[in-house]
């Protein structure tokens, strides 16, 4: 039995525990945090290589046999998501070394960060529905504290909304789990898939499906359940916002993809039709919200919502091509979105504000930063040859293949609006003349950009360019992941053994 799928949970746990024990030695703690994230990347790379080579790996925790005990399952989707998360975790840890202040580090920024990573990796790997709830809560608890850490006025106000709405989402999730358990008597995802395949009476299944859709929809911030996101994401330090943007909503998307390909496929015309409608609304509302704002972080927060729509759109098409596109989109968006937040944070570091009105002229002073931001902005808008273009292309081609022309038109129109909104940030912050008036006490000009902040942005920019120029092997991987998801037998067999 391979213990490989356990490592992405154990490594952050150990890192969190050890760095908590070293709370008094900040330098040691930072080194440990860096080493822990690097170790997680190594484990994730090994996991992906192994899963690709040997197929789906399932580990029975405590050797309790599958439908009764909890299993961790690593298929291609899980492995890809774990790898992407670990890469972003590493970049944000490096960035946090230069961005998160002493007080926050003293109050446990690094242990919380790794607890968050543990929750996220656990959620990606678990094969048990209730266990998924527990990992969600681990992740959320860490995110609650990270969000409120520092205790500034607007942080507290944002955190209260965030906690309340996430608690409600968790309640919906738990209700769905309760009904599903009452109906089927199992919470093992593979077992659920097997037992519900033969359910002809789908009333209760549909109730559970909709409850879980609501719960994951709130976490993924789809229309009309997204209001917590723009209310809270602009409040904490950049490193925290960036890791939230990278991971939290994507865990919701992952859970949607997992449940709506493995378990809830009895009535796809209804459920996946609903997903399509919600996706279109999410894309449009998100991008319009972004167009109305003038604060870099708020604009980017609304773009998170808009981009989520593309991912769920791929799921809604419910074909191998659509889901492969959705997976590619998730990974692309994790990289680009995080990078935009990190670059925006550097702008704030240089000028002391996120408000576009008081920014300008950065292109002349910092051409490298301007270039890095522009690459990510264009990638998000879907300009070739960057990764965003391919991600959109895959989703849109999948849409054309199933004949959803109206949705494809919406996706393309939203792409243009995204481009408008991204060029707005870029021209306002970097291109236009420096403003003559500053809000009182907010003009400060540090000599240069610290390397700790710039290095992760450069690495992630290289990643989005690389993914755009040499996408073949990654597209191949997303295809394999999508095929595994659509053909559920491999997953069920890996967890429960040969089907009788």
């Amino acid at each position, binding site marked *: 039995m391979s213990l490989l799928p356990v490592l992405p949970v154990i490594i952050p746990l150990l890192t969190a525990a050890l760095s908590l024990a070293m709370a008094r030695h900040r330098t040691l703690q930072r080194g440990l945090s860096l080493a822990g994230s690097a170790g997680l990347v190594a484990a994730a790379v090994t996991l992906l290589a192994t899963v690709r080579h040997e197929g789906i790996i399932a580990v029975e925790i405590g050797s309790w046999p599958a439908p009764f005990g909890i299993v961790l399952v690593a298929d291609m989707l899980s492995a890809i998501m774990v790898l992407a998360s670990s890469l972003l975790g590493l970049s944000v840890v490096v960035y946090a070394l230069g961005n998160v202040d002493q007080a926050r580090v003293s109050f446990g920024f690094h242990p919380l960060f790794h607890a968050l990573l543990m929750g996220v990796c656990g959620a990606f790997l678990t094969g048990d529905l*209730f266990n998924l*709830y*527990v990992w969600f*809560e681990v992740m*959320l*608890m860490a995110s*609650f*504290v990270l969000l*409120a850490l520092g*205790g500034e*006025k*607007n942080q*507290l*106000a*944002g*955190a*209260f*909304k965030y*906690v*309340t709405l996430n*608690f*409600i989402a*968790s*309640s919906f999730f*738990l*209700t769905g*789990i*309760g*009904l599903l*358990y*009452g*109906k089927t*008597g199992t919470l093992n995802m593979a077992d659920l898939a097997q037992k519900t395949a033969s359910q002809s009476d789908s009333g209760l299944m549909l109730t559970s499906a909709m409850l879980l859709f609501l719960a994951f929809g709130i976490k993924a911030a789809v229309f009309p359940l997204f209001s917590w996101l723009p209310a809270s994401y602009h*409040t904490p330090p950049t490193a925290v916002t960036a890791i939230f943007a990278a991971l939290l909503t994507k865990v919701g998307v992952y859970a949607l993809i997992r449940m709506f390909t493995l378990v809830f496929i009895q009535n796809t015309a209804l459920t996946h039709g609903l997903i399509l409608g919600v996706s279109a609304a999410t894309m449009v509302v998100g991008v319009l919200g972004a167009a109305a704002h003038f604060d870099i972080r708020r604009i980017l927060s609304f773009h998170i919502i808009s981009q989520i729509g593309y991912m769920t759109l791929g799921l809604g098409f419910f074909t191998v091509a659509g889901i492969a596109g959705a997976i590619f989109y998730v990974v692309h968006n994790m990289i680009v979105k995080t990078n935009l937040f990190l670059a925006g944070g550097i702008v704030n570091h240089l000028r002391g504000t996120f408000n576009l009105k008081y920014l300008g002229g950065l292109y002349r002073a910092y051409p490298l930063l301007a270039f890095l931001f522009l690459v990510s902005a264009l990638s998000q808008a879907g300009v070739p040859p960057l990764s965003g273009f391919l991600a959109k292309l895959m989703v849109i081609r999948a849409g054309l293949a199933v004949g959803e022309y109206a949705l494809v038109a919406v996706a393309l129109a939203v792409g243009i609006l995204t481009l408008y909104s991204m060029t707005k940030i870029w021209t306002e912050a970097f291109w236009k003349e420096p403003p003559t008036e500053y809000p009182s006490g907010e003009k400060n000009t540090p000599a240069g950009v610290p390397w700790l902040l710039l290095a992760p942005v450069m690495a992630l920019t290289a990643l989005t360019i690389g993914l755009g120029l040499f996408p073949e092997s990654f597209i191949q991987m997303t295809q394999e992941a999508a095929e595994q998801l659509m053909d559920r037998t491999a997953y069920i067999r890996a967890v429960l053994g040969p089907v009788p």
Partner: protein
Amino acid sequence: METVLAFITGILFAGGIYLLLRRSMSKVILGLLLVGHAVNLLIFTAAGLVRSRSPLIPPGSERLSPPYPDPLAQALILTAIVIGFGILAFALVLAYRTFAVTGTDDVDELQESAP
């Protein structure tokens, strides 16, 4: 008995959601509390009720003899209670801190004080 519990669950949900829609932070937290209880009761009821039996193997016997209540559902509820308790404790501290910093318990005013 299931009917009674179903009604209690419904009332708890209704009361909880009503409180969640209030503007006062302390009432919102009470709402969270009620919704949490409602969910736990729902899992308890949905897993099936068995009167006056515990899922223990009697001495001298090899296995459980039906009817026995489902211990897994109770384990799930126990976990959910612990997690809910943790979140609620955090929410209380957060609300208290927010009140201390902003001087208001009203969620709408919070919005205005933090643009």
